[in-house]
């Protein structure tokens, strides 16, 4: 375990670059189908987009979030919770603005087992009028096993 608790605490307050995202029709069609849902009417996008759209729109990738928290490997990260607050449904071909960052970190040591670092991310999704569309908060657990 090379990363210290102090290093991770220093991530609290880290801000992502921010940016924009437009959900393409093909992307909505494929992801909606992958959930087993029938196509949604009109230009409505499936709510499952609230996972990757905020991350990508904030200017980061899942791999970069793993690296930021010093994940031991891509498979050493588990989900603690998701909290999606939705003011307006997402729609295809609409430009969304994102801003967000890291809001919390805590470390838990499991007796005779691994250390788990829980990192909380929060991203706000806005439309071009700067009206809030959604706010997503998610906490991932980064498992550190002794080598």
């Amino acid at each position, binding site marked *: 375990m090379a990363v210290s608790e102090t290093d991770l605490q220093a991530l609290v307050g880290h801000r992502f670059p921010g940016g924009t995202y437009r959900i393409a029709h093909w992307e909505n069609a494929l992801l909606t189908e992958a959930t087993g849902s029938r196509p949604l009417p009109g230009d409505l996008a499936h709510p*499952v987009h609230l996972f990757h759209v905020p991350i990508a729109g904030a200017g980061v990738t*899942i791999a970069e979030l793993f690296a930021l928290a010093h994940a031991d490997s891509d498979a050493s990260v588990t989900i603690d919770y998701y909290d999606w607050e*939705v003011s307006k449904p997402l729609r295809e071909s609409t430009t969304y603005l994102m801003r967000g960052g890291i809001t919390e970190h805590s470390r838990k040591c499991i007796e005779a087992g691994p250390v788990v670092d829980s990192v909380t991310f929060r991203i706000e999704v806005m439309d071009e009028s700067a009206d809030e569309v959604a706010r997503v908060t998610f906490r991932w657990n980064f498992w550190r096993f002794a080598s």
Partner: protein
Amino acid sequence: MKVEVGARIPSWGLERVTPERMKTVAAILRDPNPIHWDRQFATERGLKGRLVNQSPINLGYIANMLMEWAGPACIRRLRVEFPAPVFDGDGVTAGGEVTAVFSEGRSRLARCAVWLDRSDGSRAVEGWAVVELPDCGPISSTADSHGVQASDQ
């Protein structure tokens, strides 16, 4: 649509989670975790070669249930945890129950306990949701402006 506290939301199910869909999702999400698409890796991780379904898709099944019930733009909040993974080949069933009905501005909302169960009966997702109800008639229960009743606290 009349909604009462204690009402069960019609369940939504998928007979079998498939690896093909996981691969599509991994590509769209740009999710590098090989437990979603590399069966050899899943074997080496002690998962008996079974791929792990992406957590957002497990949450998506719950969203499907809510949208089938209250409409495709109904979801106002979803807050869930993931006590167990879903593997390829599993069947899943999303369920829910209304715990409060309340008003916010001109909208009528329902707070619901929601979950996703695997075909072996184990719970893969659990949490709560707030959905905006279509024309639902008179409100049959009261709660505060966030839909929180004493039993939720």
